[in-house]
């Protein structure tokens, strides 16, 4: 029962920085053979004779028989492993450097470095877990904060799948009713009334839309809310970034145009990961390098979900400032008035008129004043204005979101067809499609697309 065609993969699998003990995992048909070459157990036994799932003490040695680390090693025989392949776990004590050396050695002996999430992908391919679970694990790997981890864990237990199942079973009920009417026209089964059918489709549609909304929140948890600090040169953008981060990350000078590159950093506001982007200040300039920076900032503005519009309280509003404000458009914006420790030169009322939607927070980045208030305002804006929620939250991958969107379209089309009086067996096609599509999230139906993607991404054959 072996597929020689599959490569053996390896990786350090404990989150870096966790208490020193790291695990190097090896999975695949050659896992035992590779481990055998580098492990010297205390007891005189070949690795192939080891008891399944039992820790053995010994040394990892390199090709010159030099000891790299003292480790505990266990073998896990297929198919009762996470990946359903033969697996080896090496628990090392010697810190990150030793772990990396062990990994390098394993790779030397013929394993390939696993791609992120590849163990999980294999688990899926070998039928160990369903798609939704596999993706949750992949998300865990990428989770940026503790909160995101909690949500990812929740999905792993199948809560997301459960919600999908609920929508599907509701739809299935409607489908079944329609089918019964069609197949048994002469039995006295009450006819599924159009109102009832529309109602049910509508309910399903709402649930799918809710899921999509919380999937949006899920994405924020996974990738961070991209937040752009936008402002004229020298207003104190980099200072604000440093203040939010509580460290000297960006260079701060009194020379306008200091920041020319884009700086991205994550902060955590009550568990929500925020990706703060500090950019070049935007102004009319002839400096080529600065121009490039400004262009990039413009691009980031387009992608940003939240804008911190910064204004220097000690200077009068310039045309540059006004131009900036126009650029913001209808992006969710918070106006940050900086340098409140200096004498006031701008008219706050004027600003309020220019960006009426935005809340105004006054800070001193230099003195670190008003930073907590700014954080509160950011949190409120995300939860209230942007509808962020972590209640019943799901973390959806891009694929899952696309499926939800497609199902939404089918349901909308079904509703529309109902309104137009299209024959029920045709409306039912849409309902059935929505039902089947949703099944793809939990892997209940595997469409050609999934298979193709799997083939594209994986090493199958040589």
């Amino acid at each position, binding site marked *: *029962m*072996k*597929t020689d*065609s599959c490569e053996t993969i390896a990786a350090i699998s404990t989150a870096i920085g966790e208490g020193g003990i790291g695990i190097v995992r090896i999975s695949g048909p050659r896992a035992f053979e590779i481990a055998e070459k580098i492990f010297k157990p205390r007891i005189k036994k070949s690795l192939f004779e080891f008891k399944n799932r039992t820790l053995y003490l010994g040394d990892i040695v390199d090709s010159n028989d030099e000891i790299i680390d003292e480790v505990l090693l266990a073998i896990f025989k*297929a*198919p009762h492993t996470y990946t*359903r392949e033969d697996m080896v776990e090496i628990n090392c004590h010697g810190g990150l450097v030793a772990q990396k050396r062990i990994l390098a050695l394993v790779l030397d002996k013929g394993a390939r470095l696993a791609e992120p999430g590849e163990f999980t992908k294999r688990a*899926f*391919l*070998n*039928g*160990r877990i*369903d798609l939704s679970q596999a993706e949750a694990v992949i998300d865990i790997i990428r989770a940026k904060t503790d909160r995101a981890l909690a949500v990812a864990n929740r999905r792993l237990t199948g809560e997301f799948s459960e919600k999908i199942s609920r929508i599907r079973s509701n739809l299935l009920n409607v489908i079944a009713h329609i*089918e019964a*009417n*069609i*197949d*048994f*026209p*002469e*039995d*006295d089964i009450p006819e599924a009334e159009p109102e009832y059918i529309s109602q049910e489709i509508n309910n399903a549609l709402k649930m799918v839309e809710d899921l999509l909304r919380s999937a949006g929140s899920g994405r924020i948890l996974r990738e961070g809310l991209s937040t752009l600090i936008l402002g004229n040169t020298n207003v104190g953008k980099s200072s604000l970034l440093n203040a939010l981060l509580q460290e000297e990350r960006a260079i701060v000078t009194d020379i306008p145009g200091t920041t020319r590159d884009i700086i991205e950093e994550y902060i955590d506001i009550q568990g929500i990961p925020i990706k703060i982007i500090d950019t070049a200040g935007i102004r009319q300039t002839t400096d080529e390098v600065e121009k490039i920076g400004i262009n990039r900032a413009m691009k980031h503005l387009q992608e940003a979900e939240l804008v911190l519009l910064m204004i220097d309280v000690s200077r009068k509003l310039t045309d540059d400032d006004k131009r900036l404000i126009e650029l913001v458009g209808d992006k969710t914006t918070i106006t940050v008035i900086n340098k409140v420790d200096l004498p006031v030169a701008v008219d706050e009322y004027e600003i309020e008129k220019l960006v009426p939607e935005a809340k105004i927070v006054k800070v001193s980045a230099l003195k670190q004043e008003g930073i907590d208030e700014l954080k509160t305002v950011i949190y409120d804006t995300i939860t209230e204005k942007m509808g962020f929620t972590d209640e019943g939250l799901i973390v959806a991958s891009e694929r899952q979101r696309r499926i939800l969107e497609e199902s939404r379209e089918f349901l909308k089309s079904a509703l529309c067809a109902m309104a*137009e*009086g*299209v*024959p*029920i*067996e*045709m409306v039912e*096609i849409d309902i059935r499609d929505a039902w089947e599509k949703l099944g793809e999230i939990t*892997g*209940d*139906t*595997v*469409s*050609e697309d*999934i*298979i193709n993607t*799997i*083939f594209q991404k*994986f090493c*199958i*054959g*040589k």
Partner: protein
Amino acid sequence: MDYNVGKYDVAVVGIGHAGCEAALATARMGLKTVAFAINLDSIALMACNPSIGGPGKGNMVREIDALGGQMAINVDKTFIQVRMLNTKKGPAVRALRAQLDKRAYSAAMKYTVESQENLDIVQEEVVKILVEGEKVKGVVTKTGGVYEARAVILTTGVYLRGRIVIGDLSYSSGPSGLFPANELSKSLESLGLELGRFKTGTPPRIHKDSVDFSKMIIQPGDDVITPFSYTSEKIQREQVPCWLTYTNETTHKIIAENLHRAPLYTGEIKGVGPRYCPSVEMKIVNFKDKKSHQIFIEPEGNGTKEMYVQGLSTSLPADVQIAMTHSVKGLENAKIMRFGYAIEYDFVVPTQLKPTLETKAVQGLYMAGQINGTSGYEEAAAQGLIAGINAALKIKEKEPLVLSRSDAYIGVLIDDLVTKGVTEPYRILTSRAEYRLLLRQDNADLRLMDIGHSIGLISDDRYEKFLKKKKSIDDEIKRLKSVKITPTAKVNEVLTGLNTAKLNSPSTLAELLKRPELDYEKLKVLDEDREQLPDDVIEQVEIATAYEGYIERQMSQVAQFKKMENKKIPDDIDYDEIYGLGFEAREKLKEVKPISIGQASRISGVNPSDITVLLIYLETKRRKSHNE
């Protein structure tokens, strides 16, 4: 003592609904055929209700017709009432159903098989299948007659070790007082075939003169008769009505009080019965809240006073049957002529069959009809036809005929049987079909007549006619798409008169036809010079145009589906060698031996990850052999 009777190409065991189609197909395809029945007076006997068609079933009857089978023609000869069902829904689920003259149906079919060239009919019970090596050799009858045959098709219905149960009475019997076939099962078992046991039941028959129709609701046939067969021209015939009445709380009470005598609940009956066709005692037990159930009183024919009591299928003791029948409105004085009964019988587990209906174990041995765990005349006939065609094609060393799920209901039926097996007597349902919109009863000829013609069951004459129809459909659709109507005052006046929106810009006739308020007939005023086309052509043009969007969508789904169907699994695949398959999946795959990934994905117990694993394995193999 055995004696040699002769050599045949094909021997068909059973001349019921499956057997008739099978024997006619092989004989018509030029093969010397012999067919057996336990009693020649029961050829194509409708042992249960005297009706053919309905959702899914009616579609299959039309498909049988398009492939050159006999059922539809025989129905048109002998129906006493026809109704199109689901007319309030769309065209895809409309369904034709006919009430038949039971005797006349059987007699007409008997005459057809008797008249068929190449076909011998014999009243004999077959007791043994002869096999040499892995190949079928012929059959042996009870009198010792040995009939050599290159192919044997078993269509034995409910006769194998048939056992009738009424109350606490049970005895070995076939249906309707006919002899059972008690020996053949052993022969099948000795060939290594796995048998199962199902049961089905039938209601009492009552005397017409003892029924008070004034207390019932009349159910007349359609005003305009739609024939089943594409060969039939317009039919005008006096139709006989059916009658509707209901059970009531007294009926339910009588049944409830006698449940301890119901063999279904005493454990007397062990075979599994059909869920969609429950006995009245099951309905009462399972749906306690329902205060009444429908009862249809259906005539069994013109030359008889027997009437069929649809809805009262039962195996309760005879005295309870009398009491409960009399409790129904209009049946207070009804005289029971035949009592209802349940019958248990052997069937052959159908996953042992290939999609051609040949057994995997014995070459040349085919099975069709109720023996495969199905129920229903139409299901039987459909399988009989396909088994007959495939037996003939194999003898002629030609490619087999396997209809796919996107070709026909027959394809759905057979794929379900051989892929998923059966847990109860199987009946076709439109909901079993994924591509229902394409598998309409109105377009079976367009779907299948090419095949019927190419295998030689559709005559050149009939085919010419069909091609003409097809051409005029295509031409008319094209024409409607090209003729533009300009928004003149007159046109808009006409449109307003038809209760539909005015035109702002020029529009084709096809676009107008898509409007729910309009149909082909109504467009005539805007399209005065058009040629008068036959109704069946107009029907196709209307459906194809009005529902174009949905039809195209299903066609693209079919294209997707075909991709998986076309990923063939080699015969010699070794499932034990494949890493990562689930245990159950491995066992199921070994049993069913699917011919394609598509078929594999429909096996219960084979889940998507198993399919992924299988695809990866096949892909790996492919790449390996590619590199070598």
